[in-house]
């Protein structure tokens, strides 16, 4: 991963699919059906000849492509659609945990969830958390990528060090974060005390939220860094040189030339980061609240887990996951309809 040649990085498309699959059932129905613009995305690479790859391939039998697709479709069906349908079904039932009897209750589970002010508090925190984590993870990742891209000597070492953190599993990241923010021994707590800020993670809502956001951002920066860096390296040198002749201000060149050319990468990362903040931060949150959410902030996914797996309330928890699926669906449609329009792939 530490080589600096232009394209050892996995293509965004391939990584994108892998990640969508990791990110759980609720995202997939929305993403699987969309066309990821393979041909269009590839167009931003220097190698113009490769655009020919977008040409249609002819199959001898019309069924052959479906046969090739079958394993992937089977996986999607078994692991994503089937559980989703089950979740939708059980959200209309009240069921005893052991499955002895279930009563059809219509929309009662949804009404109970939507009536709860607590649920809206968690939803509000989730929105703020997602926005902040996405913003800072993208901004810092981009900043580091731009700076690393400019480094000539020893750039491989720089890049390796920056990417390193990505290999840490979320619960481990949570544990490390927890140690930094530990009430008794945390170095960051000691540091903040110099400035008169007594951080109490696990006790104070705001402090815990702050710690969670810091750890979640820290964990995601390397991922964004990799993609931004590969995106930057895909920008033709001729374009950069031409821009450098026209404009002396590096900052201005960045805003008018580099950033628009990075837009496809940035858009892809936006979706991945939003999904990350909504779902993949579960491990971090679980470790940081130490199994006891108490008055600490949690996200909607964690609430689904608490009610379903710890509280054994299947109906209520299913209703919450259906609501979550709808939120992701709306978000994805919004992103593709309104933001993708501003992205130019060529």
């Amino acid at each position, binding site marked *: 991963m530490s080589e600096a040649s232009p394209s050892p990085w996995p293509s965004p498309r391939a990584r994108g699919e892998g990640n969508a699959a990791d990110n759980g059932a609720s995202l997939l129905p929305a993403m699987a059906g969309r066309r990821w613009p393979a041909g269009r995305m590839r167009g931003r690479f220097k190698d113009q000849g490769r655009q020919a790859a977008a040409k249609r391939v002819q199959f001898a039998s019309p069924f052959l492509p479906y046969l090739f697709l079958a394993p992937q479709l089977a996986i999607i069906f078994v692991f994503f659609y089937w559980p989703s349908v089950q979740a939708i079904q059980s959200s209309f039932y009240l069921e005893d*945990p*052991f499955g002895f*009897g279930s009563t059809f209750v219509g929309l009662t589970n949804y009404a109970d969830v939507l009536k709860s002010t607590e649920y809206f508090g968690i939803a509000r925190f989730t929105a703020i958390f997602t926005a902040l984590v996405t913003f800072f993870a993208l901004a810092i990742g981009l900043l580091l990528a731009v700076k690393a891209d400019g480094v000539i000597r020893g750039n491989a070492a720089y890049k390796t060090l920056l990417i390193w953190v990505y290999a840490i599993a979320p619960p481990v990241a949570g544990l490390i974060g927890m140690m930094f923010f530990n009430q008794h021994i945390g170095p960051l707590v000691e540091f903040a005390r110099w400035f008169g800020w007594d951080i109490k993670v696990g006790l104070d809502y705001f402090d815990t939220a702050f710690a969670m956001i810091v750890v979640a951002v820290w964990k995601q920066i390397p991922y964004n860094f990799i993609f931004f860096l590969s995106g930057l390296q895909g920008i033709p040198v001729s374009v950069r040189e031409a821009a450098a002749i026209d404009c002396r201000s590096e900052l201005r060149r960045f805003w008018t030339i580099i950033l628009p050319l990075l837009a496809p990468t940035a858009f892809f990362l936006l979706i991945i980061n939003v999904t990350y903040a909504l779902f993949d931060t579960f491990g971090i949150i679980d470790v940081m609240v*130490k199994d*006891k*959410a108490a008055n600490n902030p949690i996200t909607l996914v964690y609430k689904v887990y608490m009610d379903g*797996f*710890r509280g*054994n309330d299947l109906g209520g928890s299913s209703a919450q996951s259906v609501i979550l699926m709808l939120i992701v669906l709306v978000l994805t449609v919004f992103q593709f309809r309104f933001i993708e329009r501003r992205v130019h792939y060529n």
Partner: protein
Amino acid sequence: MLKTISLAAIALAFSTTTSLAATNITWWHGMAGRNGEVINEVAQKFNASQSACALTPVSKGTYEEALASGIAAFRAGEQPNILQVFDAGAATIINAKGAVIPAEDLITKAGYSFDRNAFIDGVRYFYADSEGKFVGMPFNSSAPIMYINDEALKKAGVEAPKTWEEFEVIAPKLKDAGFIPLVQSQLTWQFTENFFSRNNIQFATNNNGYDSVVDTKLKVTDPNLEMMFEKLKAWKDQGYFAFYGAGWNDNQKVFEEGKAALWIGSSGSFGGLQKTATMPFSATFLPYWNAIKGAGTNSFIGGAALFAMSGKSDAENKCVADFFQFLTSPEVQYFYHKATGYVAITKAAHELAQKDGYYKEKPVAEVGIKQLLLPAGEWSKGYRLGFYPQIREIMEREYGRIFSGEATVKDALEAIEKEGNELLARFAKTAG
């Protein structure tokens, strides 16, 4: 998860190769660390004591995870023979009629006699139905007790408090001596459930939930409980009480380090505390309020019980009954009591430990059992509340708000009662 699976696989391979003729039974539990090792030792002792049955214990993580795994397995028809379920999950499994075979029925069917009076009072009712029949077999049982930093009390020149009134008198002296007077590790168990038991106050309607699931309501807006939390809040503001959040260990740590004078922990903490405490310590009962009439009764049992899951063959059920008999024998109880710090659940085991001189050597080990042996009051026998793990989460949230200043005690208790009652109503629908 992977670890659990591989352990299970190894354990399974082991058990099938070593005992080809024996009936295999499985036991899922939620214990880790030293307590998990002791479970393996208990199983080994059982397997060595007879040849008809081979018991395989499997750790499923925490108490909550063990219950969730057991439920999921039951729905898939792959349930273990024995499932360990913690105190707060008791209502979930006991109200699921048909999921378990009551321990008492299982044992009598296997040809053993069953004497309810052989068990100490504090454990006799908690996992029993309203007629007193044992549904779960009490296993690891604990009581919330107060640990004492002997050096701190000596330095301040005070005696350990029996009541909260006495605590109020000595707290300033402990503070002046440079100690945090009081910490605790679980507000739900120690200052809510066992506030009701120690002070003999009703916790919920319908006889604390034992009589029926329908229309059971919490009574946490009780003025006495409100007073308790107002006091805790005031003590915290005065520096007599410190709170480090809902995590158990964050609060225990200051006591282990010798910075706190008194810590409310579990009788089951004794085993670990002997290794981690940096100063000499002793223990006494969880204090009560002298001003409350009839207070000073025994506490609810904490910990967990073993449930025999239904849907198994007679031969396997016989083995489970054999194991339950083995487990309640005084020798095994005494071994488990010594190894973990959990209390002995039968009177015979308690007597054996006394006779052996164990409590002369380690008086702290007897505090929990003595507290459970205190006279019972009308409201100190137990509680049976559905979705109780979720209700505890609401309590943790609201108590956290009290101490971070986000909510007043009155508002917090009202929120717990309102949301808790909604959950109880939901549970009544699922169980009905």
